[in-house]
């Protein structure tokens, strides 16, 4: 039986070589159906992708979906959200169920190459951290030898965890859960000593625990987790649009354009700003991307610049109160940097 299936699957593979790749043009598809299908976090990760009780989506990742819709249609409501678990997200993008995956997904070489996705923009520079109960008296992740650690299965987090403890010659007991809320509940019930995931996630989860002040995030960041939108490989126009929708938000922050002053800025004398907002008469930036001329204006007008989105969703304007840190503009010591709009 197993042998038959192997042969059968070899047949699938053989068939795959013969079949020409379908014309991968997501932009035309999206324009034809009239909305962007965006894969977001299905386990209510506050600040990144979460749904309120009336069904509205908010979060930093959600804002990126909205920005893409604003760039294409000039209308942030032209997005449909598909809530995805860590397990569903890659098959969903592979099968074409979603046009764009914006679900705090780490950009890694294997996902970029082996899984057949393309990443370019990073809308949140993150790193994996640990959260523990304060009563344990642990001050560093290096003191965690022998601890039980709650982790969500099928994530890069799970792999980093194993590598980190190995590299530091410590042992640990993994307590693995399929879904993030199961891991939350187990940590809360004392099943594990430490909880590990992206630091941003830890802040978000800490808020959900009974008494957030009883828990602390340890200073060590054990990995690089550049989180960004992913699209299917071999569709560079779509990749351009998704990446530039995000870069437009960063560029707007660099220019000092905000949601409030964008109309005013349209009359600016600065040629860079005029070009950016589509006010330069003979500019073809928008049409070269396959977008309307005022695409960047629409993004800033309806979503705001990157800083505004950050503060609203995860920063000081939100319960998470995450510092800008690595996500400050490059001019302010961070890593957020938009290529020139020229």
């Amino acid at each position: 039986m197993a042998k038959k299936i192997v042969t059968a699957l070899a047949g699938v593979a053989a068939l795959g070589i013969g079949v020409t790749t379908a014309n991968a043009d997501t932009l035309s598809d999206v324009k034809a159906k009239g909305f962007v299908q965006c894969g977001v976090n299905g386990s209510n990760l506050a600040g990144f992708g979460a749904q309120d009780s009336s069904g509205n989506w908010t979060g930093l990742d959600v804002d990126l979906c909205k920005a893409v819709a604003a760039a294409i249609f000039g209308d942030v409501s032209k997005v449909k959200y598909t809530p995805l678990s860590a397990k569903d997200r890659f098959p969903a993008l592979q099968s074409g169920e979603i046009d764009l995956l914006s679900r705090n997904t780490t950009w890694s070489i294997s996902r970029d190459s082996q899984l057949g996705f393309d990443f370019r923009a990073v809308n949140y520079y993150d790193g994996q951290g640990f959260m523990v109960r304060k009563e344990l008296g642990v001050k560093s992740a290096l003191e965690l030898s022998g601890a039980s650690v709650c982790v969500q299965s099928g994530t890069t987090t799970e792999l980093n965890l194993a590598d980190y403890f190995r590299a530091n010659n410590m042992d640990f007991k993994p307590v693995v859960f399929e879904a993030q809320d199961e891991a939350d509940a187990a940590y809360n019930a004392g099943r594990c000593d430490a909880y590990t995931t992206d630091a941003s996630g830890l802040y978000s989860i800490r808020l959900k625990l009974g008494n957030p002040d009883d828990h602390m995030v340890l200073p060590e960041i054990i990995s690089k987790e550049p989180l960004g939108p992913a699209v299917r490989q071999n569709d560079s126009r779509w990749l351009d649009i998704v990446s530039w929708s995000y870069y437009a938000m960063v560029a707007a922050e660099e220019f000092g354009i905000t949601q409030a002053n964008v109309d005013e800025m349209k009359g600016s004398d600065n040629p860079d700003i005029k070009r950016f907002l589509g006010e330069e008469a003979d500019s073809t930036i928008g049409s070269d991307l396959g977008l309307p001329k005022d695409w960047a204006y629409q993004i800033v007008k309806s979503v705001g610049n990157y800083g505004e989105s950050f503060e609203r969703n995860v920063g000081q304007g939100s319960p998470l109160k995450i510092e800008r840190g690595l996500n400050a503009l490059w001019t302010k010591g961070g890593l957020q940097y938009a290529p020139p709009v020229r």
Partner: protein
Amino acid sequence: MTTNSMTYVRDNFIAPEAPPLSNASVIGWMRTNLFSSWKDTLLTLLAAAAVLYLLPPAIDWLFISAVWTGVDRTACLTVDQGGQLASGWSGACWAYVGDRFEQFMFGSYPRDLLWRPLLVVGLFVALLTPLLIPRVPRKGLNALLLLVALPIVAFVLLLGGPFGLRHVETTLWGGLMVTLIISFVGIAISLPVGILLALGRRSQMPIVKMSCIAFIELVRGVPLITVLFMASVLLPLFLEPGNNIDKFLRALIGVSIFASAYMAEVIRGGLQAIPKGQYEAADALGLNYPYKMMFVILPQALKLVIPGIVNTFIGMFKDTSLVTIISMYDLLGIVKASFGDSGWITPVTPLTGLIFAGFVFWLFCFSMSRYSAFVEHRLDKSYQR
């Protein structure tokens, strides 16, 4: 002849026994039912001790010490945990169930549109009740309305779209509503498909027979969860590139496939129980295969297996809880998700929520199994004529 060779014949009389105590008195009843021998007495005492040990604390936890009103978790926390209850308190937190009740029933379905699911429930009850009462006539029409017309009406009402009804995405559906929809649609689809599979399995045509057997045995040989994974992960891969089938629909497909295989076996049992004479009589009347099945065999076979169908339905109703694993929010899923809700995190929340969900599931399944027993009993009688 000596008496020795006849040892099994008693040669002396035994003393007469004392007249029996009246069975009608309480003491007599207890004597026969609780204390008939020393072993029996010991068992009774042990069981009674266990009941006395477990029952009062359970009742206390569930009702007497339970918290019935409150707006957030502080209502169910002890002083050391940051609430007002006495230290060492433990009891059910029904306030939490009350607060989340709408969510447990309807998920995130827009609150101003709740009349739509409620209307569907009303229609469902109105159509189901006459079907369940044996005396009410026109069962065929009734079943057709329930299994064909109602799903269409419910689909339009719940999802919205036409007739100016606001569109409600399936991602907003949740709670008991999802449990009921999935199990009901599963049964509505699995009945006809199951009949076809069962007929196919009993067919004389080798290819049809083999493929039906292969399908049935493959599906019955694997856990539902792998079928659900297949429906949720592989189905999009097996359809044309760029397809976008709703997650809810995928779960429905998975559950239906699974239920069909089980239903087929139940119906096959019914087909086998029909005496050969019925087949031969139908043949003698010159009925062709579809007529023979439709008018002679299936009506009898299906009637025979009503208890089996109800039992399959009970099984499916319970199994829908597995969709939580592919991150959908049925009753169990939404109750479980609410454990992580900062508004109600307390040590007693999970137990309270699970007991509530368990009670709802139990209520449905128990009443269905009672109904199934009733039908079985009734069928038994009709064959005893």
